[in-house]
């Protein structure tokens, strides 16, 4: 190490050389290590977002030129558009369910499975399997299960229910059915993250609390739950983002129906308006609004949950 390497030898020679030397390698370092990934990201994610924003200010329709600049008209129309307002409502309901239900059930199941042994390992696999299934496969399975004449209603009829609910055909119920399906698929993710969090809870702390006379509920409230704060953050943010993106289930299971838009999320409407109906300008305005909502809500929730982590 003490032997003068070429770089070190040069350092002593002249100050100009010393200053010039690192600059070139730094440019080269970025060009070789950073640029390829950044370039593709800029081309396929950032540029399209800017283009989307540009489209949203026009009446762009690739099959119906000419394209005109319409300013904020698309945005103005959005907020008096029944379809969009319904989609906003649908997305909100779906998001609330998908953030709350898998978190609550996931925590319960993680506490139940937080034991060593082959049985608990096997059951963990059961819960995690839906996470690795394609949402298309999950959608089709549940579409068959929840069909009006499907196995679930067959069982209900056999149990004496004369008019079992139309899980996917009743406009008042379909959204909750779709939300439940998303919860079923996502539950395993929450379980695994909470299980990992539970492994980080020191047993000495729990034992100490027990000696101090704390019952199971008290031990959970005072020791376990605060230490699970990072797991709650991850689960909430991941569920939030995936709920906002909900498209596959809606497309495969209900195609937005039954009735008009009872299960159509914003994500679903963006593509239905933009690619099926070709109103790319208007759909882009929807997409931009969606992006802003996702960014704002995620940032607020993340800030709130992170602060909670720091406080403890």
């Amino acid at each position: 190490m003490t032997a003068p390497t070429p770089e070190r030898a040069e350092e002593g020679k002249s100050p100009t050389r010393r200053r010039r030397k690192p600059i070139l390698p730094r440019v080269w370092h970025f060009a070789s290590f950073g640029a390829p990934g950044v370039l593709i990201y800029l081309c396929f994610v950032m540029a399209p977002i800017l283009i989307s924003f540009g489209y949203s200010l026009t009446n762009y329709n690739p099959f119906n030129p000419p394209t005109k600049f319409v300013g904020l008209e698309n945005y103005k129309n959005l907020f008096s558009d029944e379809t969009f307002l319904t989609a906003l409502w649908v997305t909100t309901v779906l998001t609330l369910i998908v953030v709350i239900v898998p978190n609550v059930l996931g925590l319960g199941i993680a506490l139940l499975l937080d034991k060593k042994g082959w049985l608990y390992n096997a059951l963990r696999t059961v819960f995690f399997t839906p996470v690795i299934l394609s949402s298309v496969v999950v959608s089709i399975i549940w579409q068959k299960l929840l069909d009006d004449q499907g196995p679930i209603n067959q069982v209900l009829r056999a149990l004496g229910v004369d008019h079992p609910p139309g899980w996917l055909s009743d406009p008042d119920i379909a959204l909750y059915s779709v939300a439940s399906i998303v919860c079923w698929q996502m539950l395993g993710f929450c379980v695994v993250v909470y299980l990992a969090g539970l492994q980080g809870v020191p047993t000495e702390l729990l034992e100490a609390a027990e000696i101090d006379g704390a019952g199971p509920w008290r031990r959970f409230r005072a020791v376990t739950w605060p230490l699970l704060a990072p797991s709650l953050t991850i689960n909430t943010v991941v569920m939030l983002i995936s709920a906002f993106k909900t498209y596959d289930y809606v497309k495969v299971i209900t195609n937005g129906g039954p009735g008009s838009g009872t299960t159509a999320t914003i994500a679903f409407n963006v593509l239905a308006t933009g690619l099926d109906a070709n109103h790319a300008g208007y759909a882009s305005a929807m997409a931009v609004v969606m992006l802003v909502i996702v960014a704002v809500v995620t940032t607020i929730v993340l800030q709130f949950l992170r602060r909670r982590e720091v406080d403890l």
Partner: protein
Amino acid sequence: MTTDKRSWVRPVVAIAVSAVFFIPLYYVLVNVFKRGDLISTEPSALPLPPTLKNISAVLTRPDGLYWVSLTNSIVVTLLSILVLTVLSAMLGHYLARSQKRWTKALTMVLLAGLMIPPQVILIPITDVLRATHLMATLQGLVLFNVGYYVPFGVFVFSGFIRGVPVELEEAALLDGANRMQVFWRIVFPLLKPATASVLIFLGVWIWNDFIDPLIILGPSQGTTVTTGIYRSIGQYQADLGSVFALMFLATLPVLIFYLALQKQFVKGLTGGATKG
């Protein structure tokens, strides 16, 4: 403790809850091996006698849907995850090691990509791909995948790279190795857990992806296994046996992949998620 007396409660409750949760999977498994006419009449009965007819019907379809879709899925998934691993490992390294203010900003821009819904970019993407003649090609889909998932790769890799001592790289640089050699020979082999989670997660996501291949590959060109299932469900609504068999066969590769790498999978999920 009183738990000895009630020690049977936990396993019984755990098994009961898991059983209810498992019903949909049971429903698929039994019907893959059941005669077509029995699927609608007794959907929840055991497949007795079991039959392989549904599976062979899918494998020997005259249009070769399964094999074409399988090939497309394998090509797209493998190419995407290989390119993604190389690019995001190097970019993650660059960002983790650089202290410049603008690289901090770049990191933020990349992390923002983790929450961008694909719908926001898909409309302009189809225009970009059409202009570059990449629409309805596997290359176009691979490029899109790389761009869209680079933030996840960078997020996982840069988290792990911060745990690798810089001195190791400095020593090798002083010994005359260039940055490429240092990275691939010294740093990258230390990133095995990160590489495993990037490969596993992106592999499963890209394999299961529906919306992007549906729109980028278009209606007529290639199908992947997921879009193949989606299209055949409309066509073969009556033949439930084939639909179940197709779903089963499409999921099998991922399922085997997952069961084989289960440990790394869960480690990657929790490690990657909690480190960043």
